[in-house]
């Protein structure tokens, strides 16, 4: 009780981290610094809110968007920014800023073009254009834009700015954002937390879902949906929790009922669960002392470890059904249980050498949980057992065990065939690894709809990806942007880049701004200004314009107080928009973004345009590819290689332990080792045959299959070597109960909603069945055949 309270207290202190990003292996530069920590990027936290008109027009969509935004106005604890409309003051303020800083936006190469504008022919034409522009909508609103530009510099600037102005996928109607066909209105939400923090995300998305339900009643012709990394994080986390509490918990209840009927004793279930509970609390306490926190996903998948732990308890309890002497029980069980425990811990400990926090967490927890359960099963459990045995309760299992499966030639032939096919498939196909972490995530129907809708409405058939220049200050990031732009220009000439956002046309480095101001002053000499004055006087009246109206231009041309200015700090650009162009990341670095369009690579390959662009950008440490998968794919593949090596090292470890345990009897060792190796190869072969690829989660599961294979094999070998047919029978009963328990639980995983948990089911089921069949059929058959 004291130990339970002690470990229970510290287990309760453990912080369960819901950060799904812990799945990601970290990618490092050569100097050991992190190349891209995806969790540090703020831009990934953007959530897209879509208002889809199902009969509603633009005005209704805008109104619904406004009303929805108003409803969220009181949720500032959850929402940092909701960008859903352009402020009406934005345009006037922008025009004013432009008038005050015009020279800083004119590239020095434009002045050669201005020379060609200073002719009478051009002015005659331009004045007519000015007249028409003044009477247009924009001219009525902002006449100063035309008054400050009699010669039509705006046409040259529009050409210069075209790549920036035409880069967007959205249009604005009534100050709201719409997709090109104006059937969907958009809003961009920035949560007040990182998207990988799914714990805090829950409150926001539960609030959004409630609001969406309310709006669906008021506006039945408008469908509101959302998507983005924070939403995916929330749905992943909540789905894992739901799977754990429904599917898997349901299967566990089923298993416990089954075991209760097998043992026919009221105290079986508490005695079965106590060691597992102790092991879990022990594992969590150790995680608390060593790390302080533990990934929820690792705990979820760690449920399978409890299967191995349960297996040891079952061995002790099953044995007790036949043997009432506690000392005899320990004599019979101590060696195989300890051996199984050591080898299983060895295989889980191998995960500690893999460069992923999640796998390391899982490995540590599994090792400690197994250790705690085993110690409890061997030290405390025997003391709790009553002296009454009940061997009759296993009569039906004994009947199965007595059936000479190892002597049935057709069965042996079938098992051999399965082994040959499995090993053959493995040798032919090898291990195929799925390095795309996207395939591990769960996508909710609503977020899938939202994402697909936005893609279909803005689809250009090309891939869009963010890249960035980096700096310790925003100015440094902006200063580094031309390096990125130069690379992208070269790639565009090669045809790899279709186009990209020229963010540097909006955010100009301060020294460049000063150069431009100097160029402006140098260009507008007295002679040139006299010429412009003369040309206006000659051509303006013909276009029904008053020459004096253009005095603004002369004021601007002769002003000597232009100063470079940081536009990003001017408070002019709405936060929701500016954050898509630049940010100060959570790690303190400043990033200046660009979106690049390139050919869509349906199959990721090192030869695709996308990868070639990424390779070119990533070669400069001042630039970043904002695709964590680009950086982690290589790391993941390397990790897979590491894992393959580790798996063989684990096998060697098990082999050595078996060799020592069987007192260097090589035949016993090889026979004990055979089911472990073969069940593993059958799993790999089945994965090739059914086109199931290895991923990060399968790696965890493989250690489980490995552990359970070791366990079954050791117990059968122990029974065979003892020469005591009863002992073999006791072990086989425990193995069968353990296998039924685990197969039921693992099969329930196939019904789970989360793909990572569902994916665990297939390979585990194949591995479990192989381990049981090999230990039940092949191992005794070979033992008897060779008479060792």
């Amino acid at each position, binding site marked *: 009780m004291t130990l339970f309270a002690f470990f229970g207290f510290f287990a309760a202190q453990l912080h369960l981290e819901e950060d799904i990003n812990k799945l990601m292996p970290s990618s490092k530069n050569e100097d050991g610094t992190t190349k891209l920590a995806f969790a540090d990027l703020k831009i990934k936290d953007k959530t897209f809110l879509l208002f889809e008109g199902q009969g509603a027009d633009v005005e209704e969509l805008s109104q619904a968007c406004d009303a929805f935004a108003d409803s969220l106005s009181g949720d500032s604890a959850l929402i940092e920014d909701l960008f859903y409309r352009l402020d009406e003051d934005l345009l006037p*303020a922008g025009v004013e800023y432009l008038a005050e800083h015009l020279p800083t936006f004119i590239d020095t190469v434009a002045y050669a073009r201005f020379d060609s504008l200073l002719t009478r022919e051009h002015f005659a034409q331009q004045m007519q254009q000015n007249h028409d522009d003044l009477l247009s909508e924009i001219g009525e609103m902002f006449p100063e834009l035309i008054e400050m530009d009699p010669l039509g510099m705006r046409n040259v600037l529009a050409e210069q700015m075209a790549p920036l102005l035409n880069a967007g996928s959205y249009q604005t109607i009534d100050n709201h954002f719409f997709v090109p066909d104006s059937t969907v209105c958009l809003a961009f939400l920035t949560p007040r937390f990182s998207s990988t923090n799914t714990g805090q995300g829950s409150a926001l998305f539960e609030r959004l879902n409630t609001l969406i339900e309310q709006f669906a009643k008021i506006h039945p012709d408008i469908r509101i949906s959302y998507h983005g990394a924070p939403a995916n994080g929330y749905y992943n986390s909540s789905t894992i929790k739901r799977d754990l509490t429904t599917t898997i918990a349901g299967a566990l209840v089923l298993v416990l009922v089954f075991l209760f009927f097998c043992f026919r004793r009221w105290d079986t279930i508490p005695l079965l669960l106590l060691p597992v509970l102790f092991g879990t609390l022990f594992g969590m306490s150790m995680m608390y002392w060593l790390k302080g926190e533990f990934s929820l996903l690792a705990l979820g998948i760690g449920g399978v470890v409890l299967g191995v732990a349960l297996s040891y308890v079952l061995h002790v309890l099953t044995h007790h059904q036949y043997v009432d002497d506690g000392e005899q029980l320990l004599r019979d069980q101590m060696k195989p249980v300890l051996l199984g425990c050591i080898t299983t811990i060895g295989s889980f400990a191998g995960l500690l050498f893999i460069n992923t926090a999640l796998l390391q967490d899982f490995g540590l927890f599994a090792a400690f949980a197994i250790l705690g359960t085993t110690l409890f099963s061997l030290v405390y459990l025997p003391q709790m057992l009553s002296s009454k045995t009940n061997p009759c309760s296993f009569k039906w299992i004994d009947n199965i065990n007595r059936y000479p499966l190892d002597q049935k030639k057709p069965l042996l032939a079938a098992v051999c065939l399965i082994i040959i096919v499995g090993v053959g498939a493995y040798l032919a196909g090898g291990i195929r690894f799925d390095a795309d972490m996207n395939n591990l995530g769960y996508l909710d129907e609503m977020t899938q709809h939202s994402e697909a809708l936005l893609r279909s409405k803005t689809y250009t058939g090309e891939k869009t990806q963010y890249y960035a220049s980096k700096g310790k200050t925003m100015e440094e990031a902006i200063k580094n942007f031309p390096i990125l732009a130069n690379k992208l220009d070269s790639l565009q000439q090669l045809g790899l880049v279709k186009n990209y956002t020229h963010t540097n046309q909006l955010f100009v480095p301060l020294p460049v701004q000063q150069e431009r101001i100097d160029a402006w002053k140098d260009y507008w000499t007295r002679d040139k200004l006299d010429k412009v004055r003369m040309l206006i006087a000659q051509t303006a009246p013909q276009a029904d314009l008053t020459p004096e109206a253009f005095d603004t231009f002369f004021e601007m041309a002769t002003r000597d107080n232009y100063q470079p200015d940081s536009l990003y700090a001017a408070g002019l650009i709405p936060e929701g928009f500016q954050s898509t162009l630049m940010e100060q990341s959570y790690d303190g670095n400043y990033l200046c973004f660009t979106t690049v369009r390139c050919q869509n690579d349906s199959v990721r390959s090192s030869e695709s345009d996308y990868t070639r662009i990424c390779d070119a950008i990533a070669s400069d440490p001042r630039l970043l590819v904002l695709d964590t998968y680009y950086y982690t794919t290589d790391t993941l593949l390397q990790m897979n290689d590491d894992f393959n090596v580790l798996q063989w090292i684990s096998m060697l470890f098990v082999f050595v332990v078996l060799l020592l345990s069987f007192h260097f009897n090589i035949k016993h060792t090889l026979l004990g080792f055979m089911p472990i190796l073969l069940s593993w190869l059958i799993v790999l072969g089945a994965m090739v045959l059914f086109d199931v690829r290895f991923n990060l989660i399968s790696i965890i599961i493989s250690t489980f299959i490995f552990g359970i294979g070791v366990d079954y094999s050791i117990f059968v070998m122990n029974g065979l070597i003892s020469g005591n047919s009863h002992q073999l029978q006791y072990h086989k009963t425990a193995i069968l109960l353990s296998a039924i328990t685990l197969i039921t639980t693992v099969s329930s995983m196939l019904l789970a909603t989360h793909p990572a948990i569902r994916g665990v089911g297939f390979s585990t089921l194949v591995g479990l069945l192989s381990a049981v069949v090999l230990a039940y059929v092949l191992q005794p058959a070979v033992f008897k055949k060779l008479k060792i």
Partner: protein
Amino acid sequence: MQAQTVTRVSHSKAVKTDVVTTGDVTIRKPDYICISTDGGKDQLIMDGTKFTMTAKGKKHITDTKKNALFATFHKVLHAVINGQPIPAGDDLVIQKQGGTQTITITPTDKKRQMFTSFVLVVDSKTSAMKRLRMNGRSDSYTEYTFK
């Protein structure tokens, strides 16, 4: 419902000749006005708290909740339509002269906006609108004269 005719004058400092168009005005209590000229290509509509301005066929919607100048403008027009006293405000000056009162709305917000002020002249006795001038940037304006 009242219907009046209207003349719209669009003035720009740079253009010698003002653009003059004609049309009609529809007013409905409690707060609906539609001033439509040039065959509907230019419109100014107040419908509740929402203003829709159409220039050369292009719509621009302003919500009074987001724009203080138009919020006061709405209050004034609402009072005029319903024959109520003009509400006082920091951004509003009322001058009475002869049989008319001139209401000038100037935004208190120092930020530059599309309109620098609105001037509305109404008949003191009947509350009928006589003239509305919307002063824009760079000395431009749009003036409606009601008959």
